[in-house]
C-alpha cells in the first residue's frame, strides 16, 4: 500500500499494488508551477492478461534491476522533455508475483495541453518496453516461460525513433 507519509517518487519500481491516482497527483503537482501549468494528464495502465499465445496464464512474476531501471526511467523522462517541452513523466512498475487483472505498470504524462501529454505517455511506455531492465516470467497451468525481446540498449537511436514514430502516428 502507498501510505500518507511515503513520498511518492514519480519514477519507481515497487513491490506493492500500484495507484494511478497517487502518481497522477504527484505529476499534476510537479507540472502546476511550470510554464503554462498543468492542463492535461494522460495515463497508460498495463494489466496482466489471462492468456498468452493461446495459453492460460496462472500468474506472472516480474523481476527488475531496480537501481538501473529507475535511471533508465529518468533517461526516458529526459528524452520526453526534449521532445515535448514542459512535459512531466512518471513511471511506476511493479515487481514480484502478479495475478491476472492486476496492474503491472502505470505511466502518466502531465503537460499544459493534451497533445503533448498523450504523445509523451505513448512514447514513454514504448521506451520502457524497449530498454528498461525488467523481465516477465509467465506461469501457465502446464509450464512457464521467460519473455525475451530485444537486448536493452538506451543508445540505440533507431529504437528511440521508432518509439517517437509510434507516439506521433
Amino acid at each position, binding site marked *: 500500500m502507498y501510505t500518507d507519509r511515503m513520498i511518492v517518487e514519480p519514477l519507481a519500481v515497487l513491490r506493492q499494488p500500484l495507484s494511478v491516482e497517487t502518481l497522477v497527483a504527484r505529476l499534476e503537482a510537479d507540472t502546476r508551477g511550470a510554464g503554462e501549468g498543468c492542463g492535461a494528464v494522460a495515463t497508460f495502465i498495463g494489466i496482466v492478461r489471462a492468456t498468452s499465445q493461446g495459453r492460460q496464464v496462472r500468474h506472472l512474476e516480474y523481476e527488475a534491476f531496480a537501481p538501473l531501471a529507475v535511471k533508465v526511467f529518468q533517461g526516458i523522462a529526459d528524452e520526453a522533455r526534449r521532445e515535448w517541452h514542459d512535459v512531466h513523466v512518471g513511471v511506476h512498475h511493479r515487481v514480484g508475483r502478479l495475478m491476472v487483472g492486476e496492474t503491472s505498470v502505470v505511466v502518466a504524462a502531465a503537460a499544459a495541453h493534451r497533445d503533448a501529454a498523450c504523445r509523451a505517455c505513448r512514447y514513454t511506455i514504448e521506451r520502457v518496453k524497449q530498454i528498461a531492465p525488467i523481465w516477465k516470467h509467465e506461469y501457465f497451468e502446464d*509450464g512457464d516461460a521467460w519473455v*525475451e525481446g530485444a537486448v536493452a540498449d538506451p543508445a540505440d537511436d533507431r529504437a528511440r525513433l521508432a518509439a517517437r514514430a509510434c507516439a506521433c502516428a
Partner: protein
Amino acid sequence: MRVTVQLFARLGDLAGRREETYDLAPGARAADVWQAVVTAHPDVRALAGAVSCAINADFAPLTAEVHDDDEVAFLPPVSGGAGQDDRHQR
C-alpha cells in the same frame, strides 16, 4: 581484485544463482567477467551475444574495465516488445 556479479532473469535461472563473487586479474574487462561466468556455469552460453552489461548500475560496454569491488550485472534481453518466437518455454 574481487567483483560481485549479478545475473538476472533467465540468466540467473541458467546459472542456478543470481549473485556471486569472482576474483580476477587487475585490468580485467567486463568481457573477462562474462567469460568467468560462462566457465563456472556453461549453461549461460545459451544467451551469449544477447546479454547487456552494467557496472555499478550503469550500462557499460563489455570492453569496459572493471575495478576492485565493482558490481557487474549481466542482463538477458528485456521483455518489452517481444515477438511470437521470443518465449523460452519449459
